[in-house]
């Protein structure tokens, strides 16, 4: 039995407003080491909201989130930023990279934030870019790379910080099927070979097909989990 990386209990998120929106309405779930899991559901069902809370980007209205045993809902804002830096890898739908830095520098940058030594940063960035199939593109800036290549840099960047897991919100939404397949293969391989845990929020069937665990969400609740 693998150890749990994320444990969520009775999570709720209410967006206050003229009409309060219960974007997440009582979700409990556990993600264990090595999972390759997709959160699926119709638009507006609360996937992004849930994922953002799992990643410590957004605070729940109630409930608890433990990551590696640490309850992140009690952390201060600054502590949370540092926690994200050391424990969570992110791949967003877009705007993942710093446009003025090369692929190599983008991957190095996060390790710089972690104050890792220069040799380690360079070696690891090179190795990760190779792992995502971007050998020879190290010095290209994001603007010189295709959307699929940019997302692969983002995956390399997410792994560079040696996180406990990677959260990916619609990572394939802007990609053609060739790039999507390519990106998924890479992530699947990293999952299998390195045991990296991935959690996706998506309504892309190509992603859902690859997932080994699919959690369906509707109206902020878990509809099914298998």
């Amino acid at each position, binding site marked *: 039995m693998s150890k749990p990386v994320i444990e969520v209990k009775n999570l709720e998120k209410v967006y206050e407003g003229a009409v309060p929106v219960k974007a997440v309405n009582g979700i409990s779930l556990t993600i264990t080491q090595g999972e390759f899991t997709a959160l699926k559901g119709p638009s507006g069902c609360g996937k992004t909201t849930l994922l953002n809370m799992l*990643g410590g980007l957004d605070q729940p209205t109630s409930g608890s989130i433990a990551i590696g045993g640490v309850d992140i809902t009690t952390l201060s804002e600054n502590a949370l930023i540092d926690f994200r830096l050391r424990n969570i890898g992110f791949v967003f739908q877009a705007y993942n990279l710093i446009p003025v830095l090369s692929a190599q520098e983008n991957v190095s940058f996060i390790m710089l934030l972690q104050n890792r030594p220069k040799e380690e940063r360079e070696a690891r960035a090179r190795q990760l870019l190779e792992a995502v199939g971007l050998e020879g593109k190290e010095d290209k800036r994001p603007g010189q790379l295709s959307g699929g290549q940019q997302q692969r840099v983002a995956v390399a960047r997410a792994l560079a910080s040696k996180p406990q897991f990677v959260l990916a919100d619609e990572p394939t939404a802007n990609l053609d099927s060739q790039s999507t397949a390519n990106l998924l293969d890479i992530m699947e391989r990293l999952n299998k070979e390195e045991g990296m845990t991935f959690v996706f929020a998506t309504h892309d069937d190509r992603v859902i097909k690859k997932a080994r665990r699919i959690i369906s969400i509707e109206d902020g609740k878990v509809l099914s989990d298998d």
Partner: protein
Amino acid sequence: MIFKVAWRNIWRAKVRSFIVIGSIAVGIWAGLLIIGFSFGMNNERTASAIGTTTGHAQIHHEDFDAEPLSTAVLADSSAVVALRKTVEALPFVSGTAQRTVLGGMINSAKSARAVRIMGIWPEEERIQTTLADYMVEGDFFEASGRNRLLVGEKLAKRLGLKLRSKVVLTFQDAEGNLSRASFRISGVYKTLNATWDEFHVYAHHEDLEKTLGVPLIHEVLVRFEETVDTEEKASQLAAAMPAGLAVKSWKQVRPELGFADDMMAIMLVLVLGIIMMALLFGIINNMLMAILERRRELGMLMAVGMNKRKLFLMILVETLMLGFVGGPIGILLGDLSTRAMMRIGIDLSSKQDGLAELGVQSVIYPEIVPSYYLIIAVMVLTTALIASILPAIKALKLNPVEAIRGS
């Protein structure tokens, strides 16, 4: 790498950055020109005051300012000769001249004014001052005659005096009694300082002695070899004086020249302050736009774990870099153009009369004042530093979730 990111970010919006850097450079350039011009003007005014009327230092009786002028004499004539010998023996002194100085009134047919009557030894005065070069009418005690008087052009206008006009001078004699004597205008002078011209008349010492009875020497003007370290030289001079005599440097004799320096310093700080304010708003505006444009990117950086301190630092470095690029360009431009104008001079002949009131010539030669380069550099960097605060705070307030989601 933060420096690399900041540097490259500046060049993302090339036109905008060029405009900000350009305005920093132009602002500094303008500031340096104003500084050079002001110093040139002031130094010229000082040099001209020293040269035409005041000398580098003056020796008086210690009661010269407090007592009625006629009694506060330096010493008798032979003692003054000895005194001047001692002074001229000092290595930094180039020459001396003695004067009678009386407070009095001048009456013309039209009007009367209080004036200072300077009794001079013309041959000496001609060597030690340049007053003789500033005659606009008549001559500098060259043509013979009796009771000749030189008046400033401004005073001549006020009193309606022409060459050969008759005036009456009233002043105290050696015993403190009021005496009167009539004089004829034999020359009209015009120095660069119209205020001086209005309140000083020059008489031949012999003509005054006829009324005073004896030569009264109130003042010894001292010229130094060079106009540098004048305060220090004046105090060395003071140390060489016998008891009862006082030495004043040109700054003490003509405090208005010192005030002008102080005023100028204040004015320059104000002008530089205004320039910096304008730059401040320009830089803030530029950085706010830069941050607005990079909202998502900055949100992403916070999301993946860039802490507030580092984010703040990144914005700060980026803002300072604008100053680091614009500053040296501005200083270089300012330096080169001031140097060019030092050679050519700035001709302000059309404003000549107004400038004369200020004691300034019509062609101004600006000066390079290195200490202001440092002041400007510090001011620009301080401005950039202040300018970075608001944009940096704005960046810190970004909510990563919203920045990533966009809308």
